[in-house]
Structures are given as structure tokens and as C-alpha cells.
């Protein structure tokens, strides 16, 4: 075991040796090293978060044909630190009639629900927090805590816009959780495990080839869970000002904002891990050299973060009834049909050559997607004809 093929365990062993050398009990040293590991991982994630603020502002500027921050430091890289100083020195306002404890707890829970997700992200075969055998479910459970933080913020602010924003966001999260669970079950079926490490190990063919529709459903429900455009009804600034975080100022608002950006990047990383091979590719030798593997995971995470931003800054906000109808009448049934087809094909094609298995899965996905689109088109045509028949009876009568 060297620094190059197992960096985290190498450093952990060395630290344990140092602590034991100081005369510390073995159990205490293990607990201390684990705690240091947790603090280092969470700090790295939050440092990355500062960088993400710059990335987000730079990318949105490009999408809107602007330059973005370019005054403080090279390429505006110091801008996030200027933002942080501004957020810290802002007055910390707690509105009259706010529920103080709940009001102050909500931003912490919001950021926490994102950071705990990094416990199960495998950056490389040997760099991971824990390899839970229920990793996919852990993702949903963390989302439940995020939902809770939003409803706490919306209710405790004592502001009707905040409450409306929270209601909308919770309605979206509770309903889009269902296609997300189903989309998470597809890699589970393909890999035969819910653990993130097992899912990456099983991807000799990337799961996006075996289940492109599953990856798409995961992306759509992830965007809804994030509350980003086209599903940003929670903060719809033209209707309810800023939604659930309307009353928050300074760093408390900053925690919500940082949580949102990090959440988007985290879901991008999960998309990379679940469907795009995790630490394998685009750089070679990701499996052998953990540092290259970790770089691969971050590259994929940033790419899908960019895709989520691309969608956010290109599309418009959709109406709430359309959003819920899209979920319950289209996305959820398609996801369930896809789940059944995937399970069936997996058993039917078990034991065949990998290329037959891959082709069968891919074609089954395309077929399900095509049938779903045809059904949606037929429904839209029926609606349109019914509307035209209502609008045109007088002119038709005149022709006869």
C-alpha cells in the first residue's frame, strides 16, 4: 500500500501510527482518525462549493452573452471571497413573529442534507466514506431531510410568500421523488446491488447505454428535486419574490444558496456514478490510480452540473399544474413501465453475450421512450381536436 494506489488509507494508517506513538489508546486513535476524515471531506466539499459560485456566475454570464465577474483576481476568481465577506457583514435580520429556533435551524439542515450525500460518493475504488449496501435509498432519505428544511424555512419565516414557496417546493419534491426512486432502481437491477461502489464496478458497459431513458428520468427528477428552472416554482421571483428564503439575510441566505449549487453538482456527480461509469473514463487508468479516478468523477460531476445549468438558463418556468400533470400522468407511468421492462429483459437476456444484452436493453429503452412519446402526442391531438370542435361549430354548420 503506497500513497499512489491507496492514498486515503495510507494517510489514515500513518496518522493512526502517529497517534499511537503519542501513547493514545488504539480505539480512541481510530475514532479520531475517522473524525478527521469526515471533517476533511466535508471541508473539501465546501471549498469546492466556493469555487462553484464562481463557475455558476461565469457560465450564466456566457449563456446570457455577458462576461461575468472579471474584476477581482484573474478571471474574477477572487469574486466568491468578496461575496462571502459581503454576506458575513450584512445585518442578520430575524423577522417579527418568526419562530426563532426553527428559523435558524432550517438553513443548517438545508446545507447538511447535501453534504451528507458525499458520505456515499465513491471517488475511486479505495476513496469513499462508507460503502452502504442501501446507497440508492440513502440518496432519497437525504432528500427527505432537504424537504423538511424547506418547509421549516417557509413556515417559520412568518411570511405568506415564503409559505407559498415552501408548499410549491414540497409538492414538487414529494411527487418527483417517485420517478427518482424508480430511476434509481434501474441501476440497482442492472448491477444487482444498491451500493454505489458495486454499481460502478458493474458498469463494464456504462448504464447510460443499457438504459438511456432511465438516465433521462433521473436527470429530470433531479432537476425538480433541486428546484431549478424549469421547475423553479419555489422561488419564482416574478410571482412570490424569492419563495421560501425570502426573509433570510446574510450568511443564512448564503447557506441556502451554497446548498443549492452544491446540490446541483452533487446530483451531477451521482448521474456520473450511476449511469456514466463513475471513476472509469474519460481519463484512462481511473480504476488503477485513485487520484485519476477521483479526477474522473469530478470531471463528470462538473460536466453534468454544466448540463443542469444549460437547462436552467435555456428553458422557461412551467406552470405548477403542468409540472404536476407532467409528473403524475407522464413521467411516473413511463418510469414504472421502464422498470418492469428492464427487470423482464434482465431475466430474459441473462447469460447471453454482453453485446446481445446491451443491444436488447438499449432497444427496449428506445421502444418504451418512443411509445410514451406517441401516447403523449395522441393525447395532445385529441385535446386539440376537442378544442377545435368546441370553437368551430358555427362555421361548420354554415358549410352544410
Amino acid at each position, binding site marked *: 500500500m503506497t500513497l499512489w494506489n491507496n492514498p486515503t488509507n495510507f494517510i489514515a494508517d500513518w496518522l493512526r501510527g502517529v497517534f499511537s506513538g503519542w501513547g493514545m489508546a488504539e480505539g480512541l486513535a481510530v475514532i479520531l482518525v475517522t473524525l478527521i476524515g469526515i471533517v476533511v471531506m466535508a471541508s473539501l466539499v465546501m471549498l469546492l462549493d466556493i469555487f462553484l459560485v464562481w463557475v455558476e456566475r461565469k457560465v450564466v454570464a456566457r449563456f446570457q452573452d455577458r462576461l461575468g465577474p472579471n474584476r477581482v483576481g484573474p478571471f474574477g476568481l477572487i469574486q466568491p471571497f468578496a461575496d462571502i465577506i459581503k454576506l458575513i457583514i450584512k445585518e442578520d435580520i430575524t423577522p417579527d413573529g418568526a*419562530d426563532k429556533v*426553527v428559523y435558524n435551524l432550517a438553513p443548517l439542515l438545508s446545507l447538511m442534507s447535501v453534504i451528507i450525500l458525499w458520505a456515499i460518493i465513491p471517488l475511486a475504488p479505495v476513496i469513499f466514506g462508507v460503502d452502504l*449496501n442501501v446507497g440508492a*435509498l440513502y440518496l432519497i432519505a437525504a432528500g*427527505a*431531510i432537504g424537504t423538511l428544511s424547506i*418547509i421549516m424555512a417557509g*413556515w417559520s419565516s412568518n411570511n405568506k410568500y415564503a409559505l407559498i414557496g415552501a408548499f410549491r417546493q414540497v409538492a414538487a419534491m*414529494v411527487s418527483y421523488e417517485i420517478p427518482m426512486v424508480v430511476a434509481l432502481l434501474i441501476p440497482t437491477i442492472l448491477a444487482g446491488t444498491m451500493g454505489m461502489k458495486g454499481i460502478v464496478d458493474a458498469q463494464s458497459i456504462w448504464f447510460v447505454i443499457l438504459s438511456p431513458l432511465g438516465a433521462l428520468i433521473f436527470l429530470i427528477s433531479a432537476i425538480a428535486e433541486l428546484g431549478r428552472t424549469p421547475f423553479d416554482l419555489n422561488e419564482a421571483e416574478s410571482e412570490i419574490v424569492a419563495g421560501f428564503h425570502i426573509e433570510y439575510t446574510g450568511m443564512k441566505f448564503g447557506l441556502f444558496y451554497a446548498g443549492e449549487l452544491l446540490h446541483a453538482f452533487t446530483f451531477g456527480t451521482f448521474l456520473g456514478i450511476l449511469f456514466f461509469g463513475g471513476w472509469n473514463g474519460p481519463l484512462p487508468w481511473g480504476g488503477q490510480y485513485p487520484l485519476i479516478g477521483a479526477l474522473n468523477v469530478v470531471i463528470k460531476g462538473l460536466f453534468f452540473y454544466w448540463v443542469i445549468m444549460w437547462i436552467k438558463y435555456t428553458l422557461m418556468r412551467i406552470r405548477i399544474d403542468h409540472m404536476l400533470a407532467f409528473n403524475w400522468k407522464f413521467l411516473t407511468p413511463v418510469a414504472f413501465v421502464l422498470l418492469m421492462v428492464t427487470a423482464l429483459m434482465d431475466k430474459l437476456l441473462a447469460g447471453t453475450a454482453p453485446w446481445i444484452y446491451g443491444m436488447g436493453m438499449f432497444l427496449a429503452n428506445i421502444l418504451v421512450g418512443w411509445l410514451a412519446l406517441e401516447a403523449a402526442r395522441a393525447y395532445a391531438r385529441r385535446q386539440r381536436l376537442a378544442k377545435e370542435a368546441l370553437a368551430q361549430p358555427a362555421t361548420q354548420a354554415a358549410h352544410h
Partner: protein
Amino acid sequence: MTALQVLFILSAAVILGSALMVVTVRNLIHAALWLIVTLFGVAVLYAMLNASFLALVQVVVYIGAIAILFIFAVMLTRKEMRDRGPQLNKTWWLAGIIGLLTFGGLAWLLNNWSGFWKTAGVIPAGADTMRDLGVALVSPNAYVLPFEVASVLLLAALIGAVYLAFNRK
């Protein structure tokens, strides 16, 4: 005392304390939030028993769905979130007796059960508890019948909800 026992006592104290808060605080939303603490404590107990699937399902279902629905129901039905009336009514002693009898009965039953005093079995390294649970839920000589009956019950509830909400034109 091992670390696990310390953790158990801590989480049991949190569960009992927050459960007491649920029934004593006057603000209904606070009661719902304390209920979430209680449910989370139960999830911690499951996690300590190596039942990671149950622990996460506890969080997803009870905190993510049921507690959120509680909060919604309280917000949508009550104009005043604060309960001003007396916290006990005339039959409090009856409820107390029933509660004590239930607790005593459960304690007596568990005390007579042979599994109660056994120490937990050690799970061999590399055992896939998730797979075992999944197989047990669908295998005919294990739990397939209760599992399917529960599914039918949930389906009936779902159809009932759709029927109630259905808009007859």
C-alpha cells in the same frame, strides 16, 4: 459499558424526551417537528441493529412522507397554530390506565419470549443482508403472503383516494 450501549442509552433518551415533547408542547407545528426527532431516533436504533434498510426506509417514509403530510394537514386545517385549551380532559385517568396496561402487557410478553434475553447474532463478513431480505420478502416459504396482503391494502387505499378526489363531470 461499550460504546454501543452508550449510544443506545443516548438515543433512547432522545426518543423518550422528544415523544414527551410531542404531547406536551402547545404549538402544533412544534409537536410535529418533535415527532420527527422521535422518528429519527427510531431510525438510529435500527441502524445500530445493523438493519440499514429499515433505518433508511424509516427516514424516507416516516420523515419524508408522513411527517411532512402531518405538517401540511396542520397548516391547512388550523387558523391558529397554538392550542389554548386545557391539555387534559375528564377521562385522562382512563387513558393513563390503558397506557400502563399496554406497557405492562408488552413488557410481560417480551419478558416471557425466549429471544428477548439472547444477545444479537454476529453477521458474518461479506453477508449481503439486503439480498437476504429481498429474497425473504418474495419467497413462498417466508413472507410472500404478508407482503402481498400489505401491497393489496395499500392499493385499496390508493384506489380509495383516487375515488374520493375524482371529479365527476
